[in-house]
């Protein structure tokens, strides 16, 4: 199994969810996060003084998928979240050892 963590633009969350739903990936966890990449944010002004917004709001989507569909899921996420502009985000892939259902206590296979 793979844990796929994608940090995407907040307005792309629905597109990514739709794309993963089409692949019958059953669940996801979404977290509001802040971060920066190479651009180090941007500047803003308040009452005549400039300040740096170094950490921009993003949404992190976590899904755990079988190894066999990981490649396809990553492609779907990138396809759905991509605008081609700076700030589209990142996808991280991490091996997941096990996963359990808390209600039944069963271990997924």
């Amino acid at each position: 199994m793979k844990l796929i963590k994608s940090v995407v633009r907040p307005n792309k969350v629905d597109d990514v969810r739709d794309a993963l739903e089409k692949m019958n990936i059953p669940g996801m966890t979404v977290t509001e996060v802040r971060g920066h990449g190479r651009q180090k944010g941007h500047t803003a002004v308040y009452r005549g003084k400039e300040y740096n917004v170094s950490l921009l709001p993003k949404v992190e989507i976590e899904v755990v998928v079988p190894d066999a569909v990981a490649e396809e899921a990553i492609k779907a996420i990138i396809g759905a979240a991509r605008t081609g502009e700076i700030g589209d985000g990142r996808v991280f892939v991490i091996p997941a050892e096990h996963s359990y259902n808390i209600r039944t206590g069963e271990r997924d296979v």
Partner: protein
Amino acid sequence: MKGKAGVVGRLGLILTLLVFSFILRPAVVAAQDAAAPAVQAAASPAPAAAAAPAIDNTKVALDTIWVMITAFMVFFMNLGFAMVESGLCRQKNTVNILFKNFIVFAASSLAFLFVGWGVMFGDGNPFIGLQGIWFSAGADNSPMTGDAYQGVYHAIAWATVPFWAKFFFQLVFAGTAATIVSGAVAERIKFLSFFLFTFILVGAVYPIIGHWIWGGGFLATKGMFDFAGSTVVHSAGGWAALAGIIMLGPRLGKYKDGKVHPIMGHNMTSAALGVFVLWFGWFGFNPGSTMSADWASIAHIAATTNMAAAAASVTSLITIWMIAGKPDLSMTLNGCLAGLVAITAPCAFVSMSSAVLIGAIAGPLVVFAVLFFDKLKLDDPVGALSVHLANGVWGTLAVGLFADPTVTPAASVVKAGLFKGGGTAQLMPQIIGIVSVGAFVFTVSLVAWLVIKMLFGLRVSAQEEIEGLDFGEHGNAAYPDFQTVEPSEA
């Protein structure tokens, strides 16, 4: 804990003194009650009273309704200030700022009843009212005016409204002066120290300078005019706030490495709501200051008030847009308030085009004042100095520049301003008024802040300031549901 107990003990002492002062009350109340039957006798249309000037019941009724409704609108401005100030400060200090704005009107009400009204309008010398001070209970047969007036509040005997209408209208103004301070000292002052300062400001400082200008004092004699309080209310509040800011120092992190670090307000919705409420309230503040349903004056004043606010909003917008490259909402909101403060003194005395010009100058003035005070490292989270002090001074000066005795019935008292062919006849008293009020309020406030600092301390600890005054001063939070962990588990 020992420190807290000491503070409560001292507060207890103050309360005890207040209770003692209550004992003095019955004697003076009797004096007022004795005057009351005289009013009723005069009010009844009995032919026997024909020798004495009879009361025009319709006029008194209309004037009273007008004064009361506008007073209620000025009361509503407390909400405006609460919303502006909490919106322009950080989330972690929201309970504290709302609380200060809330309690300030309660404290002002008591202080103004106990001594403020009497010091301001009581008969006395050119510097202070001396009669009818305690519990505002001096003799008074309002709404009698002129020679028929019998009582100890001669300075305001011209208003054809009952005593408590005069009192209530003046009370809500006193509350406004006090609430100006709370925004300027926000996010770092101890709740108790601010609370105590309110009593000093409304009980002593504000009424004394109010006596000078509205209570028949030496500035009134000199011919200074401040129609609705650019100086009495706004610059006085501003000077008191300036003294507080100097004593407190800036918020942590505002000025670092020779640079100004903006500290963003947490809720622009609140700030905009507050300014709309204040703009609305000002239609009570200025037109109500006629204290009579003088139809020609109140319509004119409502229009000048609005035009100055509109002009200042637009010119402050253009100014900040040119300086910062973006139209900044909070600065434009300050711009609107600046125009309202500036037109407060001249609203009844100037033509519509002068009102537009006064507002148009107030807009850039507030923007440059904000940048200027930041240069001096005077940290004013909501721009209260720039709005109330800078523009209170400007508005008072504007009377001397643009006054035209022909614009309204209420304007007949002023001399023509510098730009209306009157030379400096009206300008000089205005300048004397600005300087004497500034010197007095600033000095006395500085001493008051110093005494409070020695007794109770002024500033919260650095730790508390970082964690937020909501938790440190009040033990709770404005938006607990926005946290992912319940605060009760902490």
